[in-house]
């Protein structure tokens, strides 16, 4: 049986159990409420309908593109008349348009995101002032989750529906247009920034020309000044509509125009004006300009690791390790250890090629070069070494490599940047050399071999290839004067003991053995310290300091002296590197032609999801449970009055609030909801009895239900959750959240799975085609298998115990999981679900990671519409979702259906997932031609013939396997598991750590970091909070009611005390640390004065002039 069939069979087994349980009638529905969907078409039907659309989508899909399918389906829905030959009524047309736009949008968003459900409020057919009918699309806030392109397409679909219905175009009045202009500005100043801020004239042009009315629900309480317009129902900001216009139609103008052309929709030509503003990163041919966008905000405790293109920053290395791709990039674990603020899964904001990434460990790339406190310069080669020396590090001269897959450049449409000179490129130059004949050397082992410098020169001379990367230093980072100063210095200082450094071919005392390294200081070059030491440091030449002397190991001394065998000339305008190449016997490549800037972003995360406060049960108890919402405490009151569903028995008509009539045992139906007195003491007693639990100290409920029906969960579920120490989310499922990371291959030992178990799970061979029998083999992961964190495993075991208790005690069925240790979790099915989406993705646990993340095949993350730049989302046990999830608990408010498993994709089709994942590299090496293209700043789309990636495999069996990597990683969880940010308890310590690190990294300007933290984090925070303090709300300590302004009575209507919502503490929290920083570092006077001003403002708000006077009196 194939992998997918296997998964499906297991899934159906769980559905059967859930069905049986549900049939007992304790829940509102008699069967599981998550429909299974095998593919996109079924997901669309499951999510938005209409019935039967899945078949039609599949039919059309064969011939035309997905976008065209979406539009065609929309047209078919609106043009199919209820009665053949007769026009539908306006109401019917509105209904059909509504269905059409949702279905079409769902198709465009792969039937995953919630936008088609929640992003569009309604469609209406309205009248122009000239009497013509037009179509209005009402957007809601959650349209955001669809992304700009889909939002823009929704507008275009709207127009397509309008044309299909033969309606007139929307003709806005000038006031209506000006209202949009005002709203966009107001939205940006009062709510949040738009990804793209359109100029007023752009908004005018767009709103004037879009042929449908793009309007929507009020999303924010802010009112506009263009009020009471006849056709605009609200005076508040329409956030959804603004997103659709600004981030949609305007920002994505080229795409809209493209589809308008493909589908022959007239009336969008004006968009041509907007299309000119193309992606600024798409500048070809030339070296990229400094891009410091990632530095715009420097946040307290999140260190800057490298300034834009600063020397000593991350070196660009092309390639993909088995845990990279989809915005995850490799860093040497030694770098992670030494900077401490990076752990597996920590997000970085980066200069290029994208905006952000997630850090994954890769130890086959270059680690950092550091200067120790004693002055020695060390190239750190391993995680262990990094750990050992990190406390002795004085300066981080180079951060080492950042492994960036080619696909990341492709994904971001960013020109290729010159590659750093590396071993895998070097060996290819040999292979490509005319002087090389097959079999001369074992190329594969040569790449990894630790060859000595003498041999390195010999190879280069023999095959006319550039010098080995190891003996190529960062020559481009120093000046030509520096070079000559160094040459002179070296030659002057070669003492008697160094005669053995016979660099001109003689034998001397040089190591005899051909291929062995010589790092023994006693045979190295010993020279007296001088100012030239700094040049050696910048070059990255390792050396030891012993007393007054520096010792350069033999190999490095040899290569240095051999490369710089005479002073260089200054006769022309050449760069340092060009000048060196004029004297060097072999070609010297640029070690790091470009550096990548970065700063630390969001820390990694893996944690159970808890609402605040976290309930065990969705059972409303009002304020009767005290601040802890304890049902047990509330039950002590006996009868309490709560807002709850009223259900009526279908047989005897008795009213209750349960799915089963407490009198006759028949099914009930919810009829309404309202305040009702319930005997909680009794209910709880019964529930205890039902599940055989004697007593529990705390079962947390909720104050009130936020769903429409207010139907409560059976108390038994809460008892059992509390017993097993698990918590529920708003939809009655139990979630665990982790940072997403990609994984294409694993080693059984590293993820804690045995070969036997793997074979049981359907794995057969390792990547070399050998049978799986050893836990050290390299195995390609199956696309729906996931590796969960230790923390997640521990929680899921508790969840499984809860489910077993629930099955046995509540539903009267057999226990299912029977999990005794975490190994039992392997092979269990889970549901992956991302926020802003409404479709879960079926997954299977295959192993565990120590890292704070969830490793899974990039397809799995992409199927949830996530990438790996620190996006996090949740997993739940499939049986939990099937048994406990119910739509009846979902909030009735807008957005309530987001982050709920409304449908489950059982099978991932790589063609139907977000096309981000199609850019994943599947190459065992970066071909030399590609390296050469990087030197020309080629566009990634122009060199696709040189690469192998998922896109090239789509539709074939190869899309499922053979996604090989180019760089090895000995362990996917090497490096720290917790970044320093999360370990340090206070902001002061975090900031101290950040600034200390800035002092140590060569690529970072410490003063700039201090100023940056103050300017973009602390000062705005203090200014904002002190402003907010003086216009804050107050709230009740007991019933939590909020007041815009304190009532004149001074107390809550419930009679209790009110407290401020913004405390003095939150206003002053960064004041001391800011002052401290301003005193300790030579920061800009402007900032010092700003801090002073803020301080005096704050003091004026919190210190009475009276107390100031009286304290003065003491001294007078």
């Amino acid at each position, binding site marked *: 049986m194939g992998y997918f069939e296997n998964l499906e069979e297991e899934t159906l087994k769980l559905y059967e159990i859930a069905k049986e349980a549900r049939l007992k009638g304790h829940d509102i529905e008699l069967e599981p409420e998550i429909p299974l969907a095998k593919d996109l078409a079924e997901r669309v039907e499951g999510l938005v309908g209409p019935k039967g659309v899945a078949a039609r989508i599949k039919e059309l899909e064969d011939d035309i593109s997905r976008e065209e399918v979406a539009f065609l389906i929309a047209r078919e829905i609106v043009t199919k008349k209820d009665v053949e030959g007769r026009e539908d009524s306006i109401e019917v047309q509105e209904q059909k348009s509504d269905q059409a736009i949702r279905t079409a949008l769902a198709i465009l968003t792969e039937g995953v995101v919630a936008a088609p459900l929640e992003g569009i409020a309604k469609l209406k057919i309205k009248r122009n002032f000239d009497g013509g009918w037009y179509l209005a699309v009402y957007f809601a806030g959650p349209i955001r989750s669809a992304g700009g392109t889909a939002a823009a397409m929704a507008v275009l679909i709207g127009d397509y529906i309008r044309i299909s219905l033969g309606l007139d175009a929307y003709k806005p009045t000038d006031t209506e247009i000006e209202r949009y202009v005002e709203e966009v500005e107001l939205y940006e100043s009062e709510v949040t920034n738009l990804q793209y801020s359109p100029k007023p004239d752009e908004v005018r042009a767009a709103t004037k020309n879009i042929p449908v009315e793009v309007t929507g629900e009020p999303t924010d309480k802010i009112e506009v000044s263009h009020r009471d317009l006849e056709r605009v129902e609200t005076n508040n900001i329409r956030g959804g509509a603004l997103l659709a216009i600004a981030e949609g139609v305007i920002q994505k103008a080229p795409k809209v125009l493209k589809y308008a052309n493909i589908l022959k929709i007239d009336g969008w030509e004006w968009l041509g004006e907007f299309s000119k503003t193309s992606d600024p990163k798409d500048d070809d041919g030339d070296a990229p300009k400094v891009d410091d966008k990632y530095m715009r905000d420097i946040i307290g405790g999140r260190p800057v690791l490298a300034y834009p293109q600063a020397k000593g920053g991350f070196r660009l290395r092309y390639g993909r390790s088995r845990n990279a791709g989809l915005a995850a990039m490799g860093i040497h674990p030694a770098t992670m250890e030494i900077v401490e603020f990076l752990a597996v899964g920590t997000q970085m904001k980066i200069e290029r090629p994208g905006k952000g990434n997630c850090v994954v460990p890769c130890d086959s790339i270059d680690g950092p070069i550091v200067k120790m406190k004693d002055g020695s310069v060390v190239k750190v080669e391993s995680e262990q070494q990094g750990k050992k020396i990190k406390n002795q590090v004085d300066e981080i001269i180079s951060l080492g490599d950042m492994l960036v897959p080619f696909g990341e450049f492709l994904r971001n449409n960013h020109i290729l940047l010159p590659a750093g000179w590396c071993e895998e490129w070097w060996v290819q130059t040999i292979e490509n050399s005319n002087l090389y004949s097959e079999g001369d050397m074992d190329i594969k082992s040569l790449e990894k071999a630790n060859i000595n410098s003498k041999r390195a020169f010999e190879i280069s001379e023999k095959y006319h290839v550039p010098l080995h990367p190891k003996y190529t230093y960062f020559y481009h980072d120093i000046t030509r004067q520096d070079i000559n100063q160094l040459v002179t210095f070296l030659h002057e200082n070669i003492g008697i003991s160094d005669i053995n450094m016979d660099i001109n071919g003689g034998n001397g005392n040089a190591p005899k053995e051909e291929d062995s390294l010589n790092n023994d200081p006693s045979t190295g070059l010993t020279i007296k310290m001088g100012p030239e030491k700094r040049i050696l440091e910048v070059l990255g030449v390792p050396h030891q300091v012993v007393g007054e002397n520096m010792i350069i190991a033999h190999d490095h001394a040899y290569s240095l002296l051999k490369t710089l065998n005479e002073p260089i000339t200054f006769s022309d305008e050449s760069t340092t590197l060009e000048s060196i190449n004029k004297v060097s016997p072999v070609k010297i490549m640029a070690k790091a032609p470009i550096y990548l800037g970065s700063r630390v972003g969001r820390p990694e995360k893996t944690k159970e999801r808890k609402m605040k406060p976290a309930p065990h049960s969705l059972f409303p108890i009002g304020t009767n449970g005290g601040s802890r919402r304890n049902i047990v405490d509330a039950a002590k009151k006996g009868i309490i009055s709560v807002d709850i569903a009223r259900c009526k028995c279908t047989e005897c008509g008795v009213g209750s609030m349960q799915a089963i009539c407490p009198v006759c045992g028949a099914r009930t139906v919810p009829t309404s909801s309202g305040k009702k007195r319930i005997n909680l003491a009794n209910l709880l007693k019964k529930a205890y009895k039902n599940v055989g639990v004697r007593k529990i100290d705390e079962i947390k409920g909720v104050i009130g239900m936020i769903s429409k029906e207010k139907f409560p969960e059976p108390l038994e579920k809460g008892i059992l959750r509390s017993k097993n120490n698990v918590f529920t989310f708003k939809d009655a499922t139990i979630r665990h959240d982790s940072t997403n990371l990609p994984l294409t291959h694993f080693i059984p030992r590293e993820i804690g799975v045995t070969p036997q178990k793997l074979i049981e799970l359907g794995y057969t061979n390792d990547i070399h085609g050998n049978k799986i029998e050893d836990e050290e083999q390299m195995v390609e992961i199956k696309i729906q298998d996931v590796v969960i964190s230790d923390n997640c495993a521990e929680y899921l075991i508790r969840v499984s115990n809860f489910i077993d208790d629930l099955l046995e005690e509540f539903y009267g069925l057999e226990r299912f999981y029977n999990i005794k240790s975490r190994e039992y979790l392997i092979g269990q099915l889970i549901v992956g679900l991302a926020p802003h989406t409404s479709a879960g993705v079926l997954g299977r646990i295959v192993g565990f990671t120590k890292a704070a993340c969830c490793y899974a095949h990039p397809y799995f993350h992409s199927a949830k519409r996530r990438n790996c730049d620190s996006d996090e989302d949740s997993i739940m046990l499939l049986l939990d979702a099937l048994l406990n999830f119910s739509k009846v608990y979902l909030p009735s408010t807008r957005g309530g259906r987001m982050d709920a498993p409304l449908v489950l994709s059982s099978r991932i089709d790589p063609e139907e997932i977000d096309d981000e994942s199609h850019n994943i590299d599947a190459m065992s090496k970066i071909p030399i031609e590609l390296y050469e293209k990087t030197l020309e700043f080629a566009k990634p789309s122009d060199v696709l013939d040189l690469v192998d990636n998922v896109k090239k495999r789509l539709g074939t069996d190869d899309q499922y396997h053979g996604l090989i990597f180019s760089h090895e990683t000995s362990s996917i969880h090497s490096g720290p598991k917790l970044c320093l940010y999360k370990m340090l308890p206070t902001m002061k310590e975090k900031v101290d750590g950040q600034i200390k690190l800035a002092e140590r990294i060569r690529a970072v300007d410490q003063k700039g970091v201090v100023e940056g933290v103050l300017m973009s984090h602390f000062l705005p925070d203090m200014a904002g909070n002190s402003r907010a303090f003086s216009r804050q709300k107050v709230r009740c300590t007991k019933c939590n009611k909020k007041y815009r*302004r304190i009532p004149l*009575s001074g107390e809550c209507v419930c009679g209790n005390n009110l407290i401020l919502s913004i405390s003095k503490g939150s206003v002053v929290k960064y004041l001391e640390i800011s002052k401290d920083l301003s005193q300790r570092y030579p920061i800009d006077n*402007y900032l010092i004065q700003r801090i002073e001003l803020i301080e005096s403002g704050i003091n004026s708000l919190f210190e009475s002039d009276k107390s100031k006077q009286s304290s003065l009196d003491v001294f007078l």
Partner: protein
Amino acid sequence: MTDDIILKFTNADLLIDDSAYKKIVEQEHSNQIVDSLIKDLSGSNDNLIFLTEPIVDQYIQKYLSKYDPQNYANQDSDIIEEMYNEINNNKTPRNKLLDVPFDFHVIQDATKKSYTNGEIKDFSAYFNNRFQKIKAMLIKKPGLKDSYPMKDVGVRDDVVNVIGMVNDIRNTKNNHKIMEIEDETGSITVLIHNENHSLFELAESVVKDEVIGVIGSKKGTLVIASDIIHPSVPRIDEKKMDFSAVFISDIHIGSSTFLEDAFKRFVKWINGDFGDEEQRKIANDVRYLVVAGDVVDGIGVYPHQEEELTIKNIYEQYEEAARLLGDINDIKIIIAPGNHDASRLAEPQPAIPENYAADLYKIKNAEFVSNPSLVSLDGLKTLIYHGRSFDDLAMTINGLSHQNSDLIMRELIEKRHLAPIYGERTPLASEFEDHLVIDEIPDIFHTGHVHINAYKKHKGIHMINSGTFQSQTEFQKIYNIMPTCAEVPVLNKGAFKILKFT
């Protein structure tokens, strides 16, 4: 409406005959006339209880003549003087008034009176003080004399007569207005029916957190309003003024858009060294210069401000201000802070602190007051307020905008509060006393902040917005705001003039 008018008379214990009634309803502003008439009568000693047509007719004539809106057209051409010509060096002799010592004193000022500790009880005290202060004004109003606490609304009979602070006001689906008001004893929900046009229109300008009187009748849990009463001000008599006072604000020294040359011309003029004879004559009558905030551009006021500053140092900005203003001779300069100055942001803002503006404090005739403050200039009570709350009012009340700050100023005077709306853009400090209540009726009400001149006389009060000495900023460019630069308002012996220094 009919019912309203009769109700009002009934409430005032007055009877009215048919013909008199007809006469009233014929009038365009019948409601106002009724109010005014009732007020007039209740204020007099006559024990009139029955109104006949002649009485009413006589009153209407009187009313119309009195309330005929004096239209001081905003920036009328004949009050604007362009300053072109710089002439001769022979100084026009100073007005003899100069020898008279300044009769200047501060009537109200919040500097060094910040007693808040930022605790919740301070917030409570602040709003209660506001309520009590304005309630005391309202309760003197005819129609509200019999007002009673809100907790009694439930137990009393149909007529509702209360004073409260507005919690919320919004439109219903059927386009009526629903307003929630409270006092310290409770709150009520008031409905303003859209068919009661005049009242509905009046309610359009009601804002959150102002204190008003409501008269109406009970209907279930709702109160149907028949009248809304603002504290308002009576018409005041114009005081005699035999000197000139000059009003400026929003100089923004330190900003790259500060119009230094124009400001220097202004200083020259005020010293009698610039302008034609007529203009210099005005200058020589000047005894007072009032600065209503934003003397300097400040630092860190908005993001990336440093890019638009020529002086990036707050101390140096004030040093420069002292240099420029220090050239002014023999004139009392009264300086209040604005949101760009080095005072705290929350209002009331204490005077610009001496430690930031040491040189400014050294100017002999300079006086530093809070924002807001009330000062007496040779007997003319001048209320100085920078105008931060204009942002909120322009956003809230239909028809108000930064371009017409005179309309906003009128609203504030009618509401007797300078920043009624809490919780929006204007930060308010929770002082025990609400310094933003307009306790005393000023003769002059001077504001700034919006960078656009405005002038109107309202019930005898000169309302002046003094524009700016800063040219259009980047921000204003984006929002298409056209400032009126270097146009200086002068009250010249009671007559309003604008002098242009561009």
